[in-house]
């Protein structure tokens, strides 16, 4: 039976794929629920905050997706896209995330070398 990817690994893979398919995305962060440490809570969806200058600044709109075991994405995920200005307002606490989520680690954009190796 194939080994299931860890939640952290899937979160990183999702973020890297989003950076790749939408180069315009400036930054991607993990969102953490209260009590969630670095994506270790198995019962919590993976949550990504994506700073995208192409998204309209119309507020925080979480979009949920279910797991897909065939694609080795065994966890549900939630994507929150924000415009750069909205991200600044989040940092300044002028804009709030729902469900007491907080901004966690930043995912790095894959390097050209990493992309070429895939």
């Amino acid at each position, binding site marked *: 039976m194939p080994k299931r990817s860890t939640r952290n690994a899937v979160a990183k893979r999702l973020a890297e*794929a989003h950076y790749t398919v939408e180069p315009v995305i400036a930054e991607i962060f993990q969102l953490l629920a209260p009590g969630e440490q670095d994506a270790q809570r198995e019962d919590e969806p993976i949550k990504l905050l994506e700073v995208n200058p192409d998204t309209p600044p119309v507020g925080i*709109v*979480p*979009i949920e997706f279910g797991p897909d075991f065939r*694609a080795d*994405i065994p966890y549900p995920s939630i*994507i929150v*896209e924000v415009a750069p200005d909205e991200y600044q307002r989040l940092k300044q606490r002028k804009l709030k995330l729902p469900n007491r989520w907080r901004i966690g680690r930043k995912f790095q954009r894959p390097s050209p070398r990493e992309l070429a190796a895939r």
Partner: protein
Amino acid sequence: MIGRRAWSIAWARQAEADLEARAVLARGGSPLCEQSHLLQMACEKLCKAFLCSHGSRPEDLQRSHAYVSKTLPVVVRQALFAGPGRRARQHTRFLKHTALLAREIELLAPAVRDGGRRPDNCEYPWADAKGNVISPIDHAFPGLAILRQPLGGRILKILTDIVHRMTGEHGPPTNPGRSGRTQDTK
């Protein structure tokens, strides 16, 4: 208490019906404004189906039309998502056009006017900057021109596939990755 999944499926089924009606109108050569109206309503309902699945209150969603431009590009990207690497990069141009189209679709609703800069819509007459009264039936909708290109056909196909999966699987769509049905639509 009615669950969020029931609301999500209900919105998705209406989106599916709107898309099917749009296809019928398109085949019959109906005016572009009528086809566009159904497309706008379908996209709005598809987006609301996703937002309901996350727990947005249905009564809140019914008040606004302005969900498409923010939600639709993310929904389409997830449907296309094929993991990291070259295959994912192939979708970059497609997603750029999807984002532009999503904004144009949102502007089709009469209530969404971009601060008065875009009074054109697919339902009600409006006055342009020169004082001419324009009826939607006479408008060419240049922002939707991409729909008449192969890329636009792909976008419609993917939207149809997404609503089929939502209504068929009775839940929020999965992130289909490499094996997703939407891969067949390229």
